[in-house]
């Protein structure tokens, strides 16, 4: 492919991917009370922030935002720790135990989540944890999804085994080996796991709907979902909610993109 054609393809891709996002942002700036636009409207004739003000009156944005931040603020680091420890531990196991553990992780990936709904509901109910934020954070104790464990394992496995042995001979404990030798060599993967965990917990609509119905513990996805019932002339409010939901994710991505796209993990594995 020529360079010009490559650039053209990239531009097309970018437009296809970004257009919906752009329409949501511009749509949220449309003045309230006007009839819905008949076609695509790239920029409203008379932009206004009135939809955001209206949003704040309809739903307790501050409370929703606080709950969502609490959940992700705890669940994301917790996922990172559990996934990283589990992935690291897998590299330290003997061949046979490792195969068993990996098989188990992959089997768990195949279990459809709805199968767990009832069991979890009963569990949280018995523990008295229904209608608290705990059920929303709890999946992080199991690394959110076995996928994050497999990702961490694959990253750690690229580090030659002799490095673990060298560390052990020097007297490093399992903790020190993970912290000083393993973790610094898998930064890109760790960031990727953080991104996966954030996306899951920030947008965790189902768990919130099932286990956290009480007004005080609602999170953004559940709170904002109610707006679907608004009528077409209030569409800018729905768009404003969408922007509110997407904004932290975008900001987070900006912060970590450098690490995410870096080749640190690969360089480390290539050297030996």
């Amino acid at each position, binding site marked *: 492919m020529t360079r010009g054609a490559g650039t053209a393809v990239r531009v097309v891709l970018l437009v296809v991917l970004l257009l919906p996002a752009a329409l949501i942002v511009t749509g949220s700036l449309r003045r309230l009370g006007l009839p819905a636009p008949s076609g695509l409207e790239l920029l409203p004739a008379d932009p206004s922030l009135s939809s955001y003000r209206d949003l704040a009156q309809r739903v307790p944005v501050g409370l929703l935002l606080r709950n969502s931040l609490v959940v992700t603020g705890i669940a994301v680091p917790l996922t990172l720790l559990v996934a990283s420890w589990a992935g690291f531990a897998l590299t330290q196991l*003997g*061949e*046979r135990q490792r195969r068993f553990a990996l098989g188990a992780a992959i089997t768990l990936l195949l279990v459809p989540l709805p199968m767990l709904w009832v069991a979890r509901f009963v569990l949280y109910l018995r523990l008295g944890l229904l209608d608290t934020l705990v059920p929303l954070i709890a999946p992080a104790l199991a690394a959110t999804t076995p996928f994050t464990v497999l990702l961490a394992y694959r990253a750690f496995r690229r580090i*030659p085994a*002799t*490095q673990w*042995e*060298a*560390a*052990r*001979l*020097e*007297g*490093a*404990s399992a903790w*020190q080996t993970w912290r*000083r*030798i393993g973790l*610094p*060599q898998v930064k890109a993967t760790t960031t990727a796991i953080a991104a996966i965990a954030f996306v899951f917990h920030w947008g965790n609509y189902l768990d919130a709907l099932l286990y956290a119905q009480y007004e005080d513990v609602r999170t953004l996805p559940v709170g904002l979902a109610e707006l679907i019932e608004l009528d077409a002339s209030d569409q800018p409010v729905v768009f404003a909610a969408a922007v509110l939901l997407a904004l932290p994710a975008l900001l987070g991505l900006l912060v970590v993109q450098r690490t995410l796209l870096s080749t640190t993990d690969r*360089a*480390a594995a290539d*050297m*030996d």
Partner: protein
Amino acid sequence: MTSRLAVEGLGHRHAGSGTWALRDLTLAVEPGQVLAVVGPSGSGKTTLLRLVCGLLRPTEGRVLLDGVDAAAVPPERRPVAMVFQGYALFPHLTVRDNIAFGLAVRRVPRAQRRARVDEVAATLRVDGLLDRLPVELSGGERQRVALARALVRDPRVFCLDEPLSSLDPVLRVEARRALSALLRADGRSAVYVTHDQAEATTVGDQVAVLREGQLEQVATPRELYARPATSFVARFVGTPPMSLLPAAALDVPARADVLVGVRAEDVHVGAGKPYVVREVEEHGHEQLLALDVGGIDLVARVPLVMNVRVGETVLAQVNPVRIRLYDGATGRLLP
């Protein structure tokens, strides 16, 4: 005198496959000595090192360090340092942090750590590289950093796994000399694993030849060359190795199944029986002739001035005093 390191009846069996990687090995290394361990891949060399430094537990037998059974001593408490094949440097740490790693995890005070690293780095001429990352080093520099990391804990015994295998041939000779001196300094001892018999005989005071987990022979390089204890050692050691031929082919009076081992320098060319030259290999100041003896090669070492071509017939005879006889069935050297 108690040996610095001794292994007695040492054996290790793979937990998974149940095969023995090493079996019934008894060896000793004295202070200030280097034991070179040589053998083809899969002969159990690396397993021996891992047992000595404590990364593996023996299935049977014992490892003795200065006369004390090491079974109860964890790897980090043994006075043993390991240089891994490929060096296993930590790629994300600077040379200084690589060398200081063991001191850091043992919480040695920072100032003391610094002084010790500086001292060791100077010994190994890596003091100019302390702020670099391993990727920024040449092969020879990496090797010296790995040695420095091993040396920093002041070990009594060095375990080295193919320490020169990732260096280019020119550098290898130089590194081998430097290594030889360092390993013996201050009464230290070393177990030096290599698959290269020439390297083993140059570095080792004693050379142990392993094959499929069993000891074939342990001897000084000179003894190993002059009297290989088995036909395997005879075929493995020396450049070129011994030629092994059936007794009848060389008219040696012995049982029919006896193999006769002949060093290339013990074949005299110029008199004797006629043989066809199958191959000529020039080596600087000398050449090696492969003579066809009933379909088997008898290698002779002759001066370069002798003008011989492939296909010619030359007269040759074997010095009968210098030959070794091996049992055809067991491969053992016959008295």
